[in-house]
């Protein structure tokens, strides 16, 4: 690079006790460049970002910002010096107004009284930089969608005029249209000379938005280059040592008898109408935009949301009860899209998490035989390759991918014969993804029926036998996989199917 890099890291190392999180990371980001930082979970991305944003001090290595040494003492110092960070989970005070949120901590004040007109001017200026002048400054943030809230958060970060803006998985909870809008915002920032470090699991997305990329593996930089000339196969191989086409490897099989029938199920406001038939050995994909009612359909089937109309028939079920408890008894299992808030008990042991649906089975008269419970949990933790110390370890101590495997282990242990999986691979690394794909394939091979909700189309197309597309609360079209393409799915999902 001929010009001075906006940011240059050389040989950054950081250890926590015996764990060497970073072993020598080099990273160079040019001015006005969007730089994708790619790596599996645990590759060291988060640690690196914490070093950059001043939350951790590196043990070795140098950092330069615009050619000058950069050694932030804490996150505030880093912000003042020009490095701002947008976290994956938004940090907004939902009850406060847009203006108050943008100026939180930097309110212009006279004698302790907030200067509202100056504050409003600053907030408006920051929003204008992003091309989002349409926000009503005095409305509470909670009135706005997640995507809009993210814009507000970015506007706040821009107040300190950062040179480097770090975005951690910014699209993980955005719809496709909102992602496009975010990309427009990013491009706008780029033209103003702000460099952006973009962290994401979605390689296609990185390819779309980034100029250059750096791949981390096990705390080291293993590759970097121009995005335009990069091959995804090469990047995935750097990340994992695996080839892309292995991801969805599975054997074909014949679907069997119908095991679950959903007839015009409705659960207002978000599920208007959904009908489907699920066969043993079938993998049924549910595609659609966020908010199209996919999660709501699964929740209504599982009895977590009330069914306002329609019917759910579990073939061979002893009764017609619809509570989650009854659904487990009928052989259904549900994997929540929201691992931390709903899927797992982070403050409890792995053993309790895996066996929670059937504790009574590990003893008599309500007493639990701890040894039997632990050995059942250990069996699945080992079978799924969950990295853990022992079954009594707390679920909150595991990484995202391993937590997801624990949540899935619960369905396997129960054991379910109909798997309802809501975003089973969200926010987890490629290695764990591949394992979960393989597992789903094996389940279908063993005659289990699987419903997969996913926002990631290559995943659905690679994995499923049948795909249904939802749009505005309605399951519009159900066809065999061979009759779908990504374009066709998006066409139906965005309302073009009618």
């Amino acid at each position, binding site marked *: 690079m001929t010009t001075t890099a906006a940011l240059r890291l050389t040989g950054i190392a950081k250890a926590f006790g015996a764990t060497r999180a970073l072993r020598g990371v080099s990273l160079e980001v040019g001015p006005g460049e969007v730089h994708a930082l790619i790596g599996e979970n645990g590759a060291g991305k988060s640690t690196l970002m914490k070093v950059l944003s001043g939350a951790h001090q590196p043990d070795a290595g140098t950092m330069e910002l615009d050619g000058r040494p950069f050694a932030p003492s804490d996150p505030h110092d880093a912000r003042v010096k020009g490095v701002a960070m947008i976290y994956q989970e938004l940090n907004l005070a939902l009850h406060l107004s847009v203006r108050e949120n943008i100026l939180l901590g930097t309110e212009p004040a006279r004698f302790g009284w907030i200067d509202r007109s100056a504050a409003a001017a600053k907030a408006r200026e920051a929003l204008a930089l992003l091309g989002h002048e349409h926000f009503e400054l005095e409305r509470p943030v909670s009135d706005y969608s997640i995507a809009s809230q993210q814009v507000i958060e970015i506007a706040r970060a821009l107040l300190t005029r950062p040179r480097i803006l770090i975005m951690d998985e910014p699209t993980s909870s955005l719809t496709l249209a909102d992602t496009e809008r975010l990309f427009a915002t990013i491009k706008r920032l780029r033209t103003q000379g702000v460099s952006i470090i973009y962290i994401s699991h979605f390689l296609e997305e990185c390819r779309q938005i980034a100029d250059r990329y750096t791949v981390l593996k096990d705390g080291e930089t293993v590759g970097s280059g121009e995005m335009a000339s990069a091959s995804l196969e090469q990047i995935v191989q750097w990340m994992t040592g695996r080839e892309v086409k292995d991801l969805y490897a599975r054997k074909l099989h014949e679907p069997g008898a119908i095991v679950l029938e959903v007839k015009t199920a409705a659960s207002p406001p978000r599920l208007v109408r959904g009908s489907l038939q699920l066969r043993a050995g079938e993998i049924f994909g549910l595609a659609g935009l966020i908010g199209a009612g996919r999660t709501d359909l699964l929740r209504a089937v599982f009895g*977590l949301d009330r069914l306002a109309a329609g019917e759910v028939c579990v073939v061979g079920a002893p009764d017609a009860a619809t*509570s*989650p*408890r*009854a*659904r*487990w*008894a009928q052989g259904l299992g*549900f994997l*929540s899209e*929201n691992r931390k*808030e*709903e*899927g*797992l*008990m*982070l*403050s*409890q042991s792995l053993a*309790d998490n895996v066996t*929670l*649906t059937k*504790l*009574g089975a590990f*003893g008599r008269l*309500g*007493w*639990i035989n*701890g040894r039997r419970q632990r050995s059942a949990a250990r069996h699945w933790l080992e079978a799924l390759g969950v990295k853990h*110390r022992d079954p009594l370890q707390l679920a*909150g*101590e595991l990484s995202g991918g391993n937590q997801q495997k624990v949540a899935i282990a*619960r369905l396997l242990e129960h054991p379910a014969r109909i798997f309802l999986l809501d975003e089973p691979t969200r926010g987890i690394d490629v290695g764990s993804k591949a394992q979960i794909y393989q597992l789903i394939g094996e389940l279908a091979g063993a005659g289990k029926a699987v419903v997969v909700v996913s926002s990631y189309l290559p995943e659905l197309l690679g994995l499923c036998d049948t795909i249904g597309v939802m749009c505005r609360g309605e399951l519009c079209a159900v066809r065999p996989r061979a009759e779908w393409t990504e374009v066709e799915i998006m066409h139906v999902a965005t309302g073009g199917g009618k």
Partner: protein
Amino acid sequence: MKSTASTVLAKAGPFLGLLVVIALFSIPGETREFFLTYYNFKTIFTQTVIVAIGALGMTMIIVSGGIDLSVGSTVAFTSVVGALLIERGWGAPAAMAAVVLAGGMIGLLNGAAIAGLRMTPFIITLGTLGVARGSAKWLADSQTVNYDDSAINAWMTTSDPFSYALPAGVWVALSLAVVTSLVLRHTVFGRHVFALGSNEATARLCGIPTTRLKVIIYAVAGCFFGVAGLFQLSRLRQGDPTVAVGLELDVIAAVIIGGASLNGGVGTILGSMIGALIMAVLRNGSQQMGWPTYFQEIIIGLVIIVAVFVDRLRQGRQT
């Protein structure tokens, strides 16, 4: 293996706190001679009984992610009920059962309101705090209820004050603690209590009947508060509707000092019992040092803050 030492320290935290507090009062000249005697500890154990039994129910509630502010009022109400029944000639066993059930009824109402109306436990039990206290005064006609004599009176004392034997109350508290601890750790019900407090959404997802579970938890805890009321009655030897004001704060403090989290999902019976003991030792020691009661209150307040702060430091280091 991730630092076994810190794990041991985490487990033993409240216990070390207890040793420190005991050591504190064993050193000064004023207390050295009497403090570390068996008789003094007999007194301390007896003084711990009511808070400890309350803490058993409260541990269940706090672990399940709830809170109960009506403990003091429940204890007053149930002890008045007991006194009235004995006054009317009920025998000790029948009166005893009625007192425990009265506590269970209040807990049942709490639980039903919390689960049925989907309101926060803080609000519901704040309401019950007033309702139960008022009802106690109403029943007792705003006076103490006196009765001639009952077997109940003997449960918090021993016939011979210089005997080595501990009063019945201590043994009851101890056995209830052992049973509750085992139930919380090794039964389906106990693990469901932890699941509910750790993540209610997960509990629901996994088919745990959360509504029913909440009602049961508050009702069972109410029974414990009824037992506490029974020992309150035994200690005073009369039903006093104004007794045990603020007891809920002592009980909650004991549970929190014992390492439970107000966010739910974390807590042990052993910890709560040690927490109750720490407070009793502090009270007893302060009295012997001749410190005024306001000074005791300040110390106990500070101990709560320090205990929770230390607990947070410990957890912060783990992650």
